[in-house]
């Protein structure tokens, strides 16, 4: 399931909704990404999340389908917030549910690696009176590349 929204999310409520009434799930992994108050060595007081409406949902759905093709997953969820966020706020939530923990951990890591390098979101940070677009991290490209030949 894919959601792009301005509103916050509740990790516990999302996990409960995914597992409610089911007895075939043995492992649930969640990843929450939050806004930090520093970026590199620069203070951050707020963050704008821009995205590409239409493509965002399609790309997230493609990434989710790829995870289901690679691992036996009972359920997955990707929630990404857009708009203005403050330090400490949630940005993104990924949830994976499987019979066993290996698949749940690997699929959650994969979803985040792919989301970071393929989902059309852009962060603009503000702090110390100036705004700057965040640069892509080289490590994110490397993290995504390791799934290519698996």
């Amino acid at each position, binding site marked *: 399931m894919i959601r792009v929204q301005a509103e916050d999310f509740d990790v516990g409520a999302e996990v409960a909704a995914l597992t409610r009434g089911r007895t075939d799930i043995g492992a649930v992994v969640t990843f929450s*990404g939050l806004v930090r108050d520093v970026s590199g060595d620069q203070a951050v007081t707020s963050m704008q*999340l*821009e*995205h*590409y409406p*239409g*493509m965002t949902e*399609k*790309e997230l759905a493609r990434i989710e389908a790829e995870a289901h093709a690679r691992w036996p997953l009972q359920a997955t969820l990707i929630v*990404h917030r857009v708009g203005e966020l403050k330090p400490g706020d949630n*940005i*993104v939530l990924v949830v994976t549910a499987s019979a066993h923990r290996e698949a749940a951990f690997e699929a959650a890591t994969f979803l*985040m690696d792919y*989301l*970071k*390098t*393929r*989902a*059309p*979101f*852009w*962060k*603009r940070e503000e702090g110390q009176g100036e705004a700057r*677009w*965040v*640069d*892509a991290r080289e490590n994110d490209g490397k993290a995504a590349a390791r799934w290519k030949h698996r």
Partner: protein
Amino acid sequence: MKLLYFAWVKQKAGTAEEDVVPPADIRDVNGLITWLKTRGDRYEAAFADLDIIRCAVDQEHGDLNTPIAGAMEIAFFPPVTGG
């Protein structure tokens, strides 16, 4: 053909969205960018460093060699930074 621009590419290009009719002999994203750069300084600025430009053709990731024949919507943006 609709063109979309995001993040700093949008700021440099000075627009979020525009409709264009590129010459018929333009076959791929690279040709489209070359043509756009002839249309003014702001396009020169937006496309100054193609190493940090990404594109999508009809909402799928593409590259400089992706054909544009029949495309309805082409987007230009920096490497993504969500998550």
